[in-house]
Every structure is written in structure tokens, then in C-alpha cells.
């Protein structure tokens, strides 16, 4: 996990005492991880933006009303809020048909490609998009463990406790998630320009 000069818990303490700059630092520090977690669950950029706001609104309400438990860690706590909101949305979405938005992923993708050629940028973007799709195609229990461990930074024991399974089951699901991703990667179509090779 990344180490920061001022810890999350120090920033939360400053924020509780009214320092809005401390809150801004927390938001900027963790926005990508939280947003990615939500996005990988709901699979829609616009819904993810809304749920990101809802997540932080809940966090602000809890902290400013004095209900935040300072003994806990900020990131796992807020990621749990995000995860729960995303799962709630996902379940609701399965029950009711929803409007399908055109995906504008490239517009807000902040990966730094500035030094690369157009071709390598395109191949890398396709690889990243394929990986997102592969993660979303994983069986739900495997995807859940993978997101919780990799993006939410929960330990395998914490995942086991949260999902009501043994740690060996959580580890096994992660193992199969990695194996499945590797298998999907090896089966993907080679990148080539169909206009050149198609006859």
C-alpha cells in the first residue's frame, strides 16, 4: 500500500476539527481507487460517478455528525460504503430495466499515454478495456474476492469474514479468478488491422 506523508487518520482528525483542505487531500488521495471499485461492480461510468458522490456524502454526513469511529481505518471504511452502494445498485439494476448509456470511457480515462505512439496507445487501451471486460465476466464470487482484495485492499481473512466463507474458500476463489483471467488473456484474438489482412 502507498505510504503518504500525512496519514489518513491525521487528515480525518484535522477534518473533524474543520480543516476542509484535509478532506480535499483525502478525496484526491483515494478517489481513483474508490471510483474503480464502484465502476468494476456497476459497469457504467455515469452510474459510478453518481455512486461516488453518494459514497462521499455518506462519509461527510457520518464524520461531520460525530459518528465516525476514529479507531478504524479511513480507506477500508469508505471503500465498504462504496462497495455496499454499488452492490445495492447492481441488485436493483437486475430487477428493473435501466437506460443504457453510451460508454465514454476514453474521455475520463486518466492513464498517462503522452509519451507513446498512437498505435501503442491504442493497443494498450484495448488491453485495459479487455481486462475490465474479463474481470466483469468472472463468476460473481471470484469477481467479488478479486475486487475486495485488489482494489479494496481487504485481507483474505477480512474477505472471508465479510462474505461468510472460510479463508481457504476466499483464497481458492482468488486463485481461480487469477487462473481464469490468465486463461482469457491467452485466448484473446491477436491485435491486427482487419482492413489490411482481410481478403
Amino acid at each position, binding site marked *: 500500500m502507498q505510504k503518504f506523508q500525512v496519514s489518513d487518520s491525521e487528515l480525518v482528525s484535522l477534518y473533524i476539527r474543520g480543516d476542509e483542505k484535509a*478532506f480535499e487531500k483525502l*478525496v*484526491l488521495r483515494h478517489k481513483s*481507487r474508490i471510483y*474503480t471499485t464502484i465502476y468494476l461492480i456497476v459497469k457504467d461510468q455515469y452510474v459510478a460517478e453518481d455512486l461516488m458522490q453518494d459514497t462521499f*456524502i455518506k462519509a*461527510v454526513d457520518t464524520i461531520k455528525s460525530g459518528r465516525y469511529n476514529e479507531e478504524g481505518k479511513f480507506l477500508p471504511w469508505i471503500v465498504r460504503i462504496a462497495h455496499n452502494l454499488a452492490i445495492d445498485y447492481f441488485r436493483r439494476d437486475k430487477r428493473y430495466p435501466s437506460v443504457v448509456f453510451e460508454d465514454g470511457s476514453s474521455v475520463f480515462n486518466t492513464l498517462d499515454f503522452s509519451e507513446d505512439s498512437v498505435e501503442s496507445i491504442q493497443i494498450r487501451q484495448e488491453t485495459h478495456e479487455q481486462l475490465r471486460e474479463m474481470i466483469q465476466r468472472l463468476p460473481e464470487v471470484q469477481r467479488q474476492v478479486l475486487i475486495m482484495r485488489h482494489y479494496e485492499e481487504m485481507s483474505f481473512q477480512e474477505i472471508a469474514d465479510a462474505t461468510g466463507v472460510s479463508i481457504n474458500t476466499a483464497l481458492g476463489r482468488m486463485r481461480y479468478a487469477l487462473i481464469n483471467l490468465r486463461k482469457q488473456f491467452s485466448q484473446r484474438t491477436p491485435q491486427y488491422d482487419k482492413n489490411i489482412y482481410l481478403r
Partner: protein
Amino acid sequence: MTRTFTYDDVVRYLYAETSPQENDAIVEALTSDAEMLAFYLDGLELQTLMDRIVRSPDSRTTDNILRYSRQYPSSQTADLSC
């Protein structure tokens, strides 16, 4: 007695959940098991790729969040749609 390591141990190792003592033994085990080593290297590569697909929200979203916080408690009825 020499402990036999499993693929689940390698998964724990990938995510730094093994003890320093286990780490030494797992590294030893990886050097003598080509399949397990391949699984470990694939895992490392996937971890790197998964780190790269991290996305950021639109700046309007973070602006809305910061505004909500600054205006709290009056922001409870604030319009977040802009």
C-alpha cells in the same frame, strides 16, 4: 520438517500476506516448481495490469463532493446535479 506450499500460499505471497519466514521458504519452493513459478509470474503480471486499469472520476464529481462538505450542514438540500 519441510512444509509443502500450495497455490493458495502463492496467492497469499502475491498479496504480501505471508510471514518473513514463509517468504524465504516460498521463494525456495518457486525455484523448484516451474508450474508454480509460472502461476506466480502470471499473478504478478495481472496485478500490474489491474493497477493500470484504475480510473478517475470526472472532476465535476470531486468538485461536487468538496462543495457538499464545505456547505455542510446547509448542503443537505444542495443541488448536486451541476
